């Protein structure tokens, strides 16, 4: 059972504990970005890693543009994944866009989640009358332009070779390089869905306890946005890290691990 899902989302399960933590990567990357974090949890937790469809080593053929036209498509995948692996009371750690994907999943199926931990969340990237998201619509177009001029190793010519020869070791390096490699059409679509979405209304529907981990300065999810999320959820905690950038789990794994552990272990 769930064999298709395992391939679809490239699911990897590690760790020897019983409490499940699911780590969900953000836009542009894949599950490898949790590499510096997971060793600290392997002994005491059951860890689920996966790639969103269209990212990393997920099954690109499963990418349906209609399904993934909103973050709900990804949230449904998470729910399906929990059901198939018979998980409940999951601690969900989502980076960036996955914070909102987790939020949508938890609002729909609260019993599946024990805690939501959001690293650099933003429910809406575009500025609105009384809301600061940090970006204008034109900014997102500029990102799309940058994406269009950077294929990052993705090539319509080499992809089939890699796909066709998964057992051959000489391709391992290229498979490892799948990190950040995305079909350009999917990359653009995912970028639009991520950065043009508005999930502000969904935050108040979450009954699950939420921790917001905020960096400063963070261009993608500025401090004001993190505070907005904190102010909008019913049951929130807020942790500001002395780290700049959008990926503290890469640049400051120790601080990130500490923030995760102190919340997970103390909040009950």
């Amino acid at each position, binding site marked *: 059972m769930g064999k298709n899902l395992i391939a679809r989302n490239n699911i990897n399960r590690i760790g020897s504990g019983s409490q499940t933590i699911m780590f969900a990567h953000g836009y542009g990357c894949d599950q490898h*970005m949790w590499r510096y974090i997971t060793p600290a949890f392997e002994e005491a937790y059951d860890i689920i890693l996966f790639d969103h469809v269209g990212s990393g080593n997920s099954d690109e053929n499963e990418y349906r543009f209609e399904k993934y036209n909103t973050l709900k498509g990804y949230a449904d995948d998470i729910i399906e994944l929990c059901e198939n692996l018979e998980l409940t009371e999951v601690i969900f750690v989502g980076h960036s866009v996955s914070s909102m994907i987790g939020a949508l999943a938890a609002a729909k199926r609260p019993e599946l989640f024990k805690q939501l931990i959001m690293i650099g969340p933003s429910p809406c990237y575009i500025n609105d009358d009384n809301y600061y998201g940090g970006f204008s619509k034109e900014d997102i177009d*500029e*990102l799309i332009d940058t994406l269009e001029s950077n294929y990052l190793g993705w090539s319509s010519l080499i992809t089939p070779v890699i796909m066709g020869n998964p057992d051959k070791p000489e391709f391992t390096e290229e498979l490892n390089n799948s990190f950040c490699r995305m079909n350009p059409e999917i990359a653009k679509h995912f970028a639009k869905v991520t950065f043009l979405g508005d999930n502000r209304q969904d935050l108040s529907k979450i009954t699950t306890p939420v921790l917001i981990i905020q960096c400063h300065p963070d261009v*993608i999810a500025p401090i004001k946005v993190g505070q907005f999320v904190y102010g909008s959820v019913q049951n929130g905690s807020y942790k500001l890290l002395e780290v700049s950038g959008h990926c503290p789990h*890469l640049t400051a794994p120790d601080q990130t691990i500490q923030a995760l552990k102190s919340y997970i272990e103390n909040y009950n």
Partner: protein
Amino acid sequence: MKSKFIEHTEDLYQNAPCGYLTMLADGEIVNINNTLLFWLGYKRDEVLYKKRFPDLLGIGGKMYYETHMMPLLQMQEKVKEINMELRGSEKRVVPVLINGIKVQAQAGETFYRLSIIDITQRKQYEKELLKARKEAEETNKRLREINEELEHFAYTASHDLQAPLNNIGSVISLIERKKLLPKGEEGDELFSIIASNTQRMRTMIHDLLEYSKLDGKIGELVHISLRETSFLAMEMLNEEISKNGAKFTIEELPIIHGNKSQITRLFLNLFSNAIKYRKAEPPQIHVSFKEERNFFTVFVQDNGTGFEQKYDKKIFNFMERLHSHDEIAGTGIGLSACKRIVDKHGGSIGVSSVPGEGSTFYFTLPKNLDTASS
């Protein structure tokens, strides 16, 4: 003897033909060379320890830096050929290509070295290419749509025209059978013009319908014995063959990969032409083949009227004919259907002909249909 050349490393760094920049994990710029400062129009003290690398990027670049470039540098300790635009003073914009590595210093500090190449001209060229590609893609899409519409139209029109025409045909036979027309030479003549034109229209619509069925798709591919297929085509022409006393000699033919009904139609059209454009003596049709490295060539030779070689392209054009309908009935669709079938199988079709001696039509079919267009 030449004296040994000495490169001064500091000068090499500062004035290299590419930009160099060193930053910390949070992007803080801790070293930058003269070349890059010159491109950006900044003074060293405006940048060093004052700006972060993302400060040099536009908003899209900043997002890309956070979501792709920095994670890659962290995870793979290098990035290659990242294309960004650097923003300098006074609204300077420099399109660049960035390579970077992560350096683990002995003291435990991590920093990142970037080498930066100015690609202003290359970018211009890339834009031209992208523009051309987008235009081509759009034209292609539009053409595909138009083609589909046309195919659909041709199919619907010819299909829908069949029913009223069949009615007219039945009425004509009814009138003839019941002898409803008054006797008289003029009436007979006019009536026979109606009947023959109705028949001609029926043939034309039938051919059009068959042609429009050969739409964009090649359909199901199977292994086909060309010899069996040519026998099948002969069976379908049974009536004409016996009426004209046509003689066929069909040699051993290869097995190919293709669409069976289309290949049958190909032979059918070629055979029926060979019979139709006959001389006084009975038609003799000879089918043979030649094996090449990647394809087979099949020859259909007749002893018919032939035509001047200069028409060898024209006869494959849609609804073009060398004879008027009154001389020899026809629609000019059969050979263009042949061409379409062969094209779709990835081959080509041609003819060599001598007036009064006969024609040899030949077509190629690839041994491996992967090379065929779909």
